[in-house]
């Protein structure tokens, strides 16, 4: 119950301070338009042909940046006096953290819908049924949510919200660009291919593209699902531990 109230609080804060919607609404739209029209011709011979590549790419990139907001939000909360009050309330003291992470789910949902809708408006027409679109949406959200725990941990361990933000930005940029999000792996130089193969983001995007191409649950998709669950299983306890320490 307290977790629900805390999630509601985070939501209200976002409504009061709409720049927090920037990264889940403006960013995917902007990237989709920019990348689509700038590189579509060069990479795939046209915007339309590029869309099946870029829609999953930008979807995951958006998940990365949406989930990284979790860390700086937590750090900001911890540094503000309001946290003292949360702690002195007779509630489970984990509620603020839980509220943050459940509130994140909504942001991830919004980001997913925005990314996919923008793709659709630009002419992306997946051949698989709507059910599979929901599946890739859920897989993306789960991935984003797993990363939220990781970024939350970073936020808890970091010195300042500014430090968290720059760390998040760099991580987001490196992980999304050093992958197959925007270009085919084959077009990369050898060393970059190695890095991209080590990058988990590549696997997530591949899994989503495969589902969209074949309309079936693939081995890769299962791998990603397992990986997401593993991340939550490892980082949720670590994050809670770091939170307790604060």
């Amino acid at each position: 119950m307290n977790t629900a109230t805390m999630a509601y609080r985070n939501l209200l804060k976002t409504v009061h301070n709409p720049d927090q919607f920037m990264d889940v609404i403006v960013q995917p739209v902007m990237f989709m338009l920019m990348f689509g029209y700038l590189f579509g011709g060069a990479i795939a011979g046209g915007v339309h042909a590029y869309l099946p590549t870029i829609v999953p790419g930008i979807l995951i990139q958006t998940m990365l940046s949406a989930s990284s907001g979790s860390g700086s939000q937590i750090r900001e909360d911890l540094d503000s006096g309001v946290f003292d009050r949360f702690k002195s309330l007779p509630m489970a003291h984990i509620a603020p953290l839980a509220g943050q992470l459940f509130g994140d789910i909504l942001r991830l949902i919004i980001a997913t819908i925005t990314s996919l809708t923008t793709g659709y408006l630009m002419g992306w027409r997946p051949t698989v049924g709507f059910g599979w679109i929901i599946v890739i949406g859920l897989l993306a959200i789960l991935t984003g949510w797993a990363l939220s725990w990781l970024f939350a941990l970073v936020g808890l361990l970091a010195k300042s919200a500014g430090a968290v933000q720059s760390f998040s930005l760099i991580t987001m940029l490196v992980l999304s660009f050093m992958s197959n999000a925007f270009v085919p792996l084959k077009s990369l130089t050898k060393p970059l291919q190695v890095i991209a193969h080590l990058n988990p983001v590549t696997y997530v995007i591949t899994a989503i593209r495969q589902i969209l191409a074949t309309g079936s649950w693939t081995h890769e998709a299962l791998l990603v699902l397992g990986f997401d669950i593993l991340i939550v299983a490892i980082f949720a306890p670590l994050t809670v531990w770091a939170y307790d320490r604060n």
Partner: protein
Amino acid sequence: MIYFVQGDLIKNKAQEGIAMTTVKAIEVSHLTKKFGNKTVVDDISFEVQPGEVFGLLGPNGAGKTTTLRMITTLLKADAGQVKIFGHDTVKEGRLARSMFGLTGQYASVDEGLSARQNLMIFARLNGLSRQAAKQRTTELLTEFSLEHSADKALKNFSGGMRRRLDLAVSLITRPALIFLDEPTTGLDPRTRTQMWTTIRQLVQQGSTVVLTTQYLDEADALADRLAVIDHGKVVKMGTPAELKQQVGGTKLAFTVNEQTEVAAAVKLLAAQVSGAVQQTGQQLRVSLKQLAQLTPILTALTQAKITISQLSVQEPSLDDVFMALTVGKN
């Protein structure tokens, strides 16, 4: 809902506690905190009776906030024990936390929300039902004259409004015990007086208040008892009157008009007071234990036909206490 019922039960328990009078509102024993190898709070012990206003007075960096944070379970103590209405804050943390409200030194309200949303959310987090939370929010907004800016973003709030909201949030559950860390720092004189009035009202309604302050007039005006803290240690404890007494009591000074009468006046004074008589030219100064000693002195002087002028009686201020007892960080 469940929590609300629990809260009520807890409050009843607390009130029973008060009725028994054996239960202290707060018992702090041997509280100690080190940051690194610096002892910030050094073996502090005190008790606060129900209904009392207890002040922690000390210069910057004395350890007031740290002490308060340990009592209110925000910070783990390295050593020592705290009981709130008889409940150990470590063993029965949740129960203890339900019995007090806290207004920290730095505004602990949500900047991103409006005053009403702040009150609503904290009311819900305190276990009030939606209906009860709404009602309490309206009550508090009125009580703290915030109803006109209730839905404005806090960014546009003045320091005084913020402070009032902060206090209002602490009072949602009508706690029997309230902690205020420097409640009036940074407020203009008018807002400060308003805050004092609010605190006095709380006390009238039966609340126990613990406040920290650097302002001596504030401690003097509000506190029943004071602990003067410096470098993490309690250097003196007592009522404001007792503390002033210790610093030398009331000072009496006057000038003897005739040079020839000075010696007689000194003799006369020495007979009346226990302390030494200080003399500079024709001016004489003594410390009085009580103001009541003044009349016999003046009567004796009149009977001896010694005329005086420039009579001044100066009661000690807590400023004297502060200066005499504390060294401060710097």
